[in-house]
């Protein structure tokens, strides 16, 4: 037996065994005992905002201690971070462009939120701006329909646990995984120029495997969540497309109450690639940024 043939066979079986080695979802109920509401509103407006947040997050139950930092509590990023450090919350609830008029234009999150989402360890729930026209009615609806979005779902227990933890009993949790069609097309284009690799087979097999992994993981999530969150309906979306457009389409299609996504990346200090444009553009619905 030639060495090349042997290595090919070993690789074939290794591939089969690696494919069979799948990440399994492990349920861990997110604990929120203390939440900090951060607003640039003052007085009664600030309290009203906090109450709206409490109503929206009824899923967390009555045991949460709600702290409020209103517009008088901080005037700088440093002061806000100091307040967060002292309060040590499990969740921060706020909105974009604090102490700024820039919320009117869809071009930034504002300097406070930019820093906050990357520095603090706890999740940050970003609400639509309280002064935005379409905000209040939607906010008060609660978290009946939650969608967790990612480009790499398999093995992301944290994303699914948080999304499940914020979904109301009797609600629906959408687990959405979208592969970027442009990246995929670029790799296939490269493969098409390598004579030793069959392009059509590669396209078919790679795509199948790429979509199979998150699908298998979602099945694992369903198997566990049916025990821990039996009243929550789990739905699957695994597809290929232009990620930003596809996520926007899905959010509109399913009238999402809360969108959950990761924003931190171990390799970079700024909000990672897809999260930033999504967080900026999706201004009408609450976003839970992990």
């Amino acid at each position: 037996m030639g060495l090349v043939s042997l290595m090919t066979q070993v690789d074939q079986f290794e591939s089969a065994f690696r494919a069979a080695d799948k990440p399994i979802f492990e349920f861990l109920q997110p604990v929120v005992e203390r939440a900090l509401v951060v607003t640039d509103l003052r007085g009664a407006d600030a309290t009203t905002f906090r109450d709206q947040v409490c109503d929206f997050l009824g899923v967390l139950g009555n045991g949460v201690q709600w702290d409020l930092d209103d517009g008088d509590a901080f005037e700088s990023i440093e002061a806000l971070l100091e307040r967060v450090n002292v309060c040590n919350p499990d969740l921060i609830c706020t909105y974009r462009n604090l102490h700024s008029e820039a919320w009117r234009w869809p071009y930034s999150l504002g300097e406070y939120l930019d820093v906050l989402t990357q520095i603090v360890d706890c999740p940050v729930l970003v609400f639509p701006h309280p002064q935005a026209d379409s905000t209040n009615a939607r906010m008060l609806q609660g978290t009946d329909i939650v969608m967790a979005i990612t480009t790499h779902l398999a093995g992301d227990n944290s994303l699914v646990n948080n999304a499940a933890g914020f979904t109301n009993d009797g609600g629906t949790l959408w687990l959405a995984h979208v592969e970027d069609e442009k990246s995929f097309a670029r790799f296939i284009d490269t493969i098409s120029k390598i004579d030793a690799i069959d392009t059509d087979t590669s396209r078919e097999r790679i795509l199948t495997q790429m979509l199979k992994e998150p699908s298998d993981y979602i099945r694992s999530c369903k198997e566990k969540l049916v025990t821990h969150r039996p009243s929550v309906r789990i739905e699957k979306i695994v597809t290929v497309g232009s990620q930003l457009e596809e996520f926007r389409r899905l959010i509109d299609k399913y009238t999402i109450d809360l969108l959950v996504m990761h924003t931190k990346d171990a390799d970079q200090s700024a909000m990672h690639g897809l999260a930033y444009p999504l967080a900026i553009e999706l201004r009408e619905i609450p976003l839970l940024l992990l």
Partner: protein
Amino acid sequence: MVSTAFALTGATQQSHDVPLVSLGVTLLFLALLIAMVLCLAFEEKLHAKKSVIVGLFAVGTLFLGAAFDLLPFGSVSVGGHEIDLPVYVPAIDWNVIAIILGSSLFVDVTSRSGLFTWIAIKLTRTSGGDPLKLLVYYGVMTVVFSAVLNNVTAMIIVGSLTGVSLNRLARNNLLLGFLIIEGLLTNVGGLLTLISSVPNIIVGTTAGISFIRFFLVTGPFVLVATFVTLWLGTRIFNVRRLATSDEREQAARLVAGFDEHDGIESRAFFWFGAVMLITFIAVIATTSVLPLIQNLGMGYVALTFGLIMLLRFKAVADKFYQAIDWDLLGFFAALFVVINVMEHALVLELIGNGLAHVIGLGDTLGTGLIVVLGATASSVTDNIPLAAMLAKILTANPVIGSDPDSPFWWAVIFGANLGGNLTPIGSASTLVAVTIIHKYELKLSFAGFVKRAFPFAAVQILLAVAYIVFFV
């Protein structure tokens, strides 16, 4: 059962006036035989496939055989009919070729059912990730797969799973030991049945040993040798059970992600494959007593089962034909031709005379010496020519040739199989183990392998000698 091809050759010889062969001619052919064995030993260095090497020697020796008027040209008698066949056609043992061809097809198609990967992954999960349990399960699996499939396929399946699972468990420090032990166990498992390895097929069919008889003789040895190899392996490579419940929980969680159903595309075909595998083993085991089938032989059974499995892929059967190891089949065919010519050149008689001195030492010393000599020779060169040649020589011995229970047959079988464990080039499966070891960038030289494998191989060979002398 005496090989049909050899019987045909015998018939040809009877109708042919074999001239006297001078010692010079015999020595010339002996030199060619040694040259062929050396070329096979340096196959990798020559960058030539076995079939090409032996094929060249086959055409060369045939030409010289014709030149020296050694070959029995003329018609051969098949069932009372005289048939004109090229002299090299009846020289080939077609039953052996049919068994290998049919079994390869059967195993290749059956493996598409996901049956073997299912077993492998199921055992991984069952181990809970405990290294000692993993070693025992993988070791037993290696032996069983080697017996049912073939040594190389068994090593590829178990070796590749070992790499993936130990990596998952972050136990890469155990990989070298696991792969060496598995490599050594392939040759132990290769002893289990008559069709588990090519030397078994050649020697077993030549001696007329039935499948059941073969299994009953080798089974107890394989059991003991497997246990001893695993026990020694845990000592030498320091494979221990997980000590704390935390470690066990973590390991169990890591292997829990393996999904044994992942490779199964069709449940119906999976079960069909499982049922057919059991049926195949049962029919092969009882071929010698089944009416009608006993006359058609094991080669027929293997081909039949291979074809039945192919029905599932009838539209793309040609892909499976492409996957057949034609190099191996060509090698066997050419090898049978070379050995047949050597027989006519009285080379086998010459070696047989030398071997007669060893046989003359008696059932105890003679048998033991043949195991050790056979193992030593198999450790540096291909065990198939050795087995084929010794089988032919033993057939010619009036006492041994007519006695399928003679311990000398078993001495050849055990020596030819276990010798592969002495060096990394001793058998194809140990070579696969070393290749996987190098794939994972673990350092293991030729001498390093010999140093680590020698205690195992020595114990196995000593066990074999004792077993044949006292129990066979």
